[in-house]
């Protein structure tokens, strides 16, 4: 069953068509990858799905609902959350507070008049926070200021924030960019583990081919905004068009 479906999704910046009539589906429970050379429109595609950018044409459907025109916070509330490419955290707040705010948003919705209610009384928020911190192995650093974490930990915190929104679909924008090989391996393991325990569907944008072919169930290949291949890793690997346009004819 498809959880996310785009239909003719197009984004134009002036004369440049960054995303050109992209139609694809993400099935419930799968790990879906989007790859493509620089400037292929991967990030723009993600931004159109989250609502950070307004598509010029086409629709985005999530869980049977049209989410094309939703604001980013509404998209998150609908069940689609995003982990950023650069760790987008709250540097001067503690690790726990970083996750708490996402858990809070998931618990009480996008807005509430609860400004005289004690935060310490939100038990579900604290439970979710602890659970997410534990799953990314940061519970021990919960009271540390986020800015003082090593880079790899910041990225895992970033993932914990995205997960605390309790999404059905997690969009991951190059989760291993800038990581050391060790950190990369740990992150890949983490992603696969999370998917099992949290019953997540993942849409991942990644440069690292090795990772993609290791974890992706299906791969969407973009070039200059257009879909040039869509299928299993094997199918994509064998596609001549992909080798031509993206890999420059190099054998994988």
């Amino acid at each position, binding site marked *: 069953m498809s959880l996310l479906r785009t239909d003719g999704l197009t984004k134009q910046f002036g004369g440049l068509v960054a995303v050109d009539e992209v139609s694809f589906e993400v099935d419930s429970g799968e790990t879906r990858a989007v790859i493509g050379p620089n400037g292929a429109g991967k990030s723009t595609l993600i931004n159109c799905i989250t609502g950070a950018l307004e598509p010029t044409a086409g629709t985005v459907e999530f869980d049977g609902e049209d989410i094309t025109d939703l*604001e980013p916070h509404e998209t998150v*509330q609908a069940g689609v959350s*995003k982990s*950023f490419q650069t760790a987008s955290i709250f540097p001067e707040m503690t690790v726990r*507070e970083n996750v708490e705010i996402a858990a*809070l948003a998931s618990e009480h919705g996008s*807005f509430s008049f609860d400004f005289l209610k004690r935060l310490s009384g939100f038990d579900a928020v604290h439970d979710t926070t602890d659970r997410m911190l534990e799953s990314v192995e940061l519970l021990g650093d919960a009271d540390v200021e986020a800015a003082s974490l090593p880079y790899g930990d910041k990225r895992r915190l970033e993932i914990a924030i995205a997960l605390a929104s309790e999404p059905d679909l997690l969009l991951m924008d190059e989760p291993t960019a800038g990581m050391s090989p060790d950190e990369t391996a740990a992150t890949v393991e983490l992603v696969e583990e999370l998917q099992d325990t949290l019953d997540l569907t993942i849409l991942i944008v990644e440069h690292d081919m090795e990772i993609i072919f290791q974890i992706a169930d299906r791969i969407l290949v973009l070039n200059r905004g257009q879909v040039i291949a869509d299928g299993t890793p094997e199918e994509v690997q064998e596609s001549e068009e992909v080798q031509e346009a993206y890999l420059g004819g190099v054998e994988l």
Partner: protein
Amino acid sequence: MSGDRSGDATDAIPDGGTVTEETAGGSGGSALAGLRERDDFVVVAMAAALVVFPFLLIDILGAVGDVIGISIGGYTGLPSLVLIYGIIVIGFNLLLGYTGLLSFGHAAFFGSAAYSAALFSQVVPSPILMVIVGTIVATLLAWPIGFVSIRRSGVYFAVLTLTFGQALYFWALGPGSWLTNGDNGFSGIEAHGLFLGAIPLDAQLIPVFDSYTVMYAFTAVVMLIAVWVGNRIINSPYGLIFEALGENEERVEFVGLNVFRYKLMAFIISAVFAGVGGAMFVIHEQYIHPTTALYWIQSGDFVIMTVLGGTGSLVGPVLGALVFEYVANVISGVSLPMIGSIGSLWRFVLGAVFVFIVWVFPRGIYGAFSDLGSRLLGEDPEEPAVADGGERE
């Protein structure tokens, strides 16, 4: 979980508010260590400080002044005036210090509340009702101004709020004269006493100590309510969200929170505090004019007080209001040998104080006390905060 929220790694300092109040109130150290773990510690500490504040400001400083031959004691109305500005900047700091929104137009809320209270006093001169009416008007005004201004950020937000504030100022001077009495303002505004006029505001509470008036007690109670409400807000989900907005607005949107509505709430809440202060101001001063109530300098003064006191805590800005009003009202009256009377040069003195504080103590007066306090208590200032006046436990 730090309620402190400025600067670098050394910021997370175990409660400086303790020590601030300690120096002011002379309370013991070890009992406070346990007390300050409590959520409402800041309210209790403020109550203690309010009891001794006029005595220190007027009587003690006055006696010192007599000895050194320079008049440095405050006048009897000064403690109330400091608290009135203190109430305003507690709210202003929720917007500037926590949410990170710099408004240059809060005189609009201060002034509209002051004028509304003044006008209402001609119908019912009850101080409590004047405060309520003034606050309601300020709140209603904050909604549309915030709604438009919040859509822009940074300097555009500051300029938009400034523009709205100045528009109101010029309206009050010219076209709105039928309501505001234009350049003449209102004088002789008289609020009757509390409890249906039974207790006049200028009545003394304690013989000999002139500054302990009913007006002071009234102001102190309103201040305590303001601190209590402010403390509840920063310990509520709003405290977390405001702080997060100040640090990474985009991320707040992407955890699923409505950034626009929360920023608007921060704006309106701060305007409520400014409204309470504006109405209290007119009760205290019994006089109102567009220049004192609505001019942009007034908005700028709120910013200066807040930064001077320190944006890193709930009550820090109150210290800024104290120093500001002390320089404006007492130092301005000081006459020095060689230099002569300081008079209207007080803004130079204030400027020097401001530059010094911001330079030496970037986290404001509160930050300075906070560092000093942790050193005196033998605590490591590098240690993450375990408890703070504005703390979630």
